């Protein structure tokens, strides 16, 4: 890299909008899990539904709209674990990028 390019690039501003989209692309892939014969996204809607239900065995539509009979508690445990792990990492990286100028 030559000096002219270095100076030009030193003036570059951090694009927070692009950073947010990059984080979304990166961490959304980590929220998808295959479990009990279905593909699931560990999101608040599914976790809330599983928490609010009372039956042990329950039929839920997976990401590809297949009705899958699942063990509610096992799936909930797996989804919660995935959700918290991924969202914690997402938050840490977002907080660090937020400070950039």
């Amino acid at each position: 890299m030559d000096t002219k390019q270095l100076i030009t690039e030193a003036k570059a501003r951090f694009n927070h909008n692009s950073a947010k989209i990059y984080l979304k692309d990166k961490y959304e892939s980590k929220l998808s899990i295959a479990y009990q014969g279905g593909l699931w996204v560990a999101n608040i809607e599914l976790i809330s539904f599983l928490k609010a239900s009372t039956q042990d065995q329950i039929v839920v539509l997976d990401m590809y709209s297949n009705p899958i009979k699942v063990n509610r508690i096992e799936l909930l445990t797996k989804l919660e674990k995935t959700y918290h792990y991924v969202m914690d990492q997402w938050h840490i990286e977002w907080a660090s990028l937020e400070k950039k100028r």
Partner: protein
Amino acid sequence: MTRGVLLFAFNNDKVDYYAMAIATAKRANKFLNLPVTVVTDKTTDLSNYTYQFDNVIIVEADRNNLNASNEVWINKGRFQAYSLSPYDETLLLDTDYLINSDTLLKPFDLYDDFMCHNRTSFLMNTLHGQELISEHTYPTLWATVIYFKKTEKAKQIFECMEMVQKNYSHYTQLYNMTVGNYRNDFSLTIALRIVCGQTEDHIHYIPWNLVHVGKNTIVHKDTDTSYTVIYDNWQRGKIRKEYCTVSDMDFHMMNKENFMELVNE
């Protein structure tokens, strides 16, 4: 059940695709812990390279295609992936796909026999929409990352890609495609539609975006898995340099020279 990565690498006068395949293979070994097989042609002088692939398969290259810069672009014959792959479960990757994480292991856990990306995003270029194979038709499916098992369905899809490739001028007219050169993305889009009875079955789509880095975006390496991405944002007739830092995320580099700079550093 054997698993591995398959790469197609045919050198032309400008680009050393075999060297790119070696760089991608090393990263597949490191991040995915998978063996890599390369498909190339007899014009590649293998004595120039020291890396040991799991397998090197020599085929007859079809040189009958040009890229946008009117250079020979040997991208035909990708349909042979099904018959050439020595693995039961294969990840078929473009050589300019930069692996920085173990995300690509996920499709092995999913239960389908064929998957590819149907959605993309461009790093730094947030306004870039989804590409269609032609106006008022289907969104492009991407052959950059394909996961397949050796099943009858996957075989049909690759056979259909062969049929589309061999009758490409017909399909160009049928779908009113404006791009004249052959693209695997387009033949994949048409083939998957045909095999699925002209319906859209989301089960074949990898459930996250394929991230592209466009030709006008420059990537600098910070560490082995983190990068600074610099982009010229045009606003009111002026260029504003903007940057973003990314880490542990795989992406598809459209700028081949930049890709080689990153992997050679």
